[in-house]
């Protein structure tokens, strides 16, 4: 067992965030407060510094990764990403399986919705994650890799779909109609998370 796969997932995500931090901050500059990339980069650097070998299994590692984000990121991203990973870790299957990983990811999404109270259409990360998990479940019968690939594709489509939306949650909501026309930064970073999963978890 061990936490190798979850460790690879977080390392991949940390690299994506680092390489795209300026792009994420620039999206946030347009409809938020210009700190999403730098905040996530700070948190994921701390997660990447955790040694997966120190953890008995992926669930324990992901819970610690979530707690680390809560303690280092702040803003809305810290509680939302932190809650996601703590819930995913808490529900992680004893034996890796497509169905078990799907259940864990679903628990993470439910944690985000509970914490942030966003619904589909509010122009948030929920708009990317929700279709991603629907696609995951639909493809889960074909195995973990096929399910994660389908999830990554649907996640990216959900992310692209946030561009015309008017924000109803978070700081972008203050802009009202002026928030339309910019891709949501949270939907953008969470797509990197699911794409990283598709490269590492199967």
């Amino acid at each position, binding site marked *: 067992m061990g936490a190798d796969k979850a460790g690879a997932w977080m390392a991949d995500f940390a690299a994506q965030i680092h390489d795209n931090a300026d792009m994420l*901050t620039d999206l946030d*500059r347009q409809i*938020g*407060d*210009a*700190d999403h990339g*730098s*905040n996530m980069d*700070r948190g994921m650097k701390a997660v990447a510094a955790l040694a997966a070998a120190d953890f008995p299994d992926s669930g324990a590692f992901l819970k610690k990764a979530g707690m680390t984000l*809560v*303690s*280092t*990121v*702040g*803003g*809305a*991203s*810290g*509680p*939302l990403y932190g809650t996601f990973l703590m819930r995913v870790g808490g529900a992680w299957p004893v034996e890796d399986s497509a169905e078990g990983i799907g259940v864990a990811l679903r628990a993470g999404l439910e944690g985000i919705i509970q*914490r*942030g109270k966003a619904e589909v259409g509010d122009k948030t990360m929920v708009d990317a994650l929700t279709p991603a998990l629907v696609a995951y479940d639909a493809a889960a019968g074909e195995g973990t890799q096929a399910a994660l690939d389908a999830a990554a594709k649907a996640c990216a489509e959900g992310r692209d779909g946030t561009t015309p939306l008017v924000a*109803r*949650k*978070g*700081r972008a*909501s*203050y*802009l*009202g109609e*002026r928030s339309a026309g910019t891709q949501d930064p949270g939907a953008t970073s969470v797509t990197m998370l699911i794409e990283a999963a598709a490269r590492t978890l199967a």
Partner: protein
Amino acid sequence: MGMLDAACAGEVFTSPVPDQMMAATVAVNGGAGVLHIVKNYTGDVMNFEMAAEMAAADSGVRVEAVVTDDDVAVKDSLWTAGRRGVGVTVLLEKIVGAAAEEGRDLDAIVALAKKINGQGRSMGMALTSCTVPAAGKPTFDIGDNEMEVGVGIHGEPGRTRMPIAPAKDIAEMLLEPILSDIDYTGSPVIAFMNGLGGTPLIELYLMYNEVAKILGKAGIPIARCLVGNYMTSLDMAGCSVTLLKADDDLVKLWDAPVNTPGLRWGC
């Protein structure tokens, strides 16, 4: 003395994290419990909720929270994150701090804080954007002859963009949505002219004078005033106006001695 016992600083424009809030809560608890004063921003509210959950589970310290949301630039509706907490927070921290210093209990302090938040409103405007150091460029673009009305305190753009106007017109633009949100007629107020960081004090006093003239005509007596840079947005040029209805108790608490890095009088 006489104001906040602790403040948690996050990264620039980012809510602090629950670990900091927990540490501060435990450090200042004198046994009577702790009040968290939280400005209404998605991140702050979420992190303070997590801190309160941790406090209940770990430390046994009684924690109450009051969320400030006084910014009339944001419509308080189901379709937004709600009005932002801005200028009223400063007045609330001072007055509630004085009440705690007097020895009022936590329930009375919470009720007082909610009362203050309910009878104070603010509105801000900017002549320039601000520059987050880590981003290195202005948060929004604005022309030399333009102003942004209804800005937030984290570089959030405002409700409308328009050509710059005389101070008198700006004062009217800021006061109109405040006075139409709450009826202040005949109530003494604490009037707070706040700078956003890049506006000289002389211009803030000039703006205050315009506000005072309008309030005089509207029959709203100014019981006390505060002018200066307190609720700032880095290097942003601009200001916000806050009006708080102030009865005798509030004025007495406002006048009580305070000794903090930000406010100091009577001691």
